[in-house]
């Protein structure tokens, strides 16, 4: 690109920016937009906070579950051993010490499991914290949306027609080469193009002969 062209483009951009600035100022939206722009990094850090909090909670719970499952596995094996031992020793006077020791072990395991359950329960505290942060971010995005809609409406040319979305959605074929994932669907009940549960997945596959 020649220097003259670069300079022309730069001038045009400068002019557009000045016009946008004037337009926003004229609509009384310059300060609100500036404030909103300033809040976006804050929103990003809030969302990072949520991701970290939920990740940590999941990790905590899984660690506890792993420990407990191992203990229960060992306890089940011991129960089996004691049962077999009792069967094999039939009429012989049972060693009450062994039985009492075993019962004590079971009791202590149970107490320990109970404490771990409490820890799991407490690890759910992320829900309260993340909900508060999510509400804050939702409020911000709602604010941005309202200002942008106002901007679009007030600057729309005459005769602008609002296109309605086609509600009779067809399944458009995707290709692997152009595939773009969209992540979890948050409103599956109101979206005909999205399945809500595994039964719908299975039904769809069955209807296609898979």
């Amino acid at each position, binding site marked *: 690109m020649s220097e003259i062209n670069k300079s022309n483009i730069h001038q045009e951009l400068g002019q557009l920016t000045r016009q946008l600035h004037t337009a926003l100022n004229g609509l009384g939206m310059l300060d609100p937009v500036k404030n909103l722009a300033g809040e976006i990094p804050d929103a990003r850090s809030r969302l990072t906070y949520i991701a970290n909090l939920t990740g940590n909670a999941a990790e905590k719970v*899984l660690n506890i579950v*792993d420990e407990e499952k191992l203990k229960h596995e060992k306890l089940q094996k011991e129960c089996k051993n004691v049962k077999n031992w009792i069967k094999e020793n039939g009429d012989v006077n049972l060693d009450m010490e062994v039985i009492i020791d075993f019962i004590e072990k079971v009791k202590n395991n149970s107490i320990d499991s109970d404490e771990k359950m409490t820890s799991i329960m407490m690890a759910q505290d992320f829900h309260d914290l993340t909900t508060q942060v999510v509400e804050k971010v939702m409020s911000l995005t709602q604010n941005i949306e309202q200002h942008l809609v106002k901007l679009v409406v007030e600057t729309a040319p005459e005769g602008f027609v609002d296109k309605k979305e086609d509600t009779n959605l067809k399944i458009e*074929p995707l290709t692997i080469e152009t*595939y773009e994932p969209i992540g979890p669907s948050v409103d599956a009940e109101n979206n005909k*193009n999205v*399945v809500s549960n*595994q039964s719908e997945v299975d039904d769809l596959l069955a209807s296609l002969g898979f």
Partner: protein
Amino acid sequence: MNKDLKFLIVDDFSTMRRILRNLLKEVGYENVEEAEDGNQAFHKLQIMAFDFVITDINMPNMNGFQLLKSIKTEDKLKHLPVLMVTAEARKEDIVLAAQSGAAGYIVKPFTKATLEDKLKVILVKYNLV
């Protein structure tokens, strides 16, 4: 039941890989390897023998569909059953998976019973029981 079957779990979330590993262990399969994305998974598939692949779709560095295609176009890998376990729930996603040769499709969140059912069906279909 063939407890020696070797599984490859592919998901960019360590939590999900851990859950799947634990669930597989609960239904009797402990021979499990993990990969964080399609690239890592495909590399492991080249150097180790696997019997079953469980993969997410939405991952960096090669998504689940690209991995599926890579597996199904490679002679020594195309026999492998590939089960998609994913949050992608559009009907087009499911259709694409089926048409691209996926052995099954599970949407997140899912239950242990769902995973167990799908595994059973696929293992029978692929003569891996």
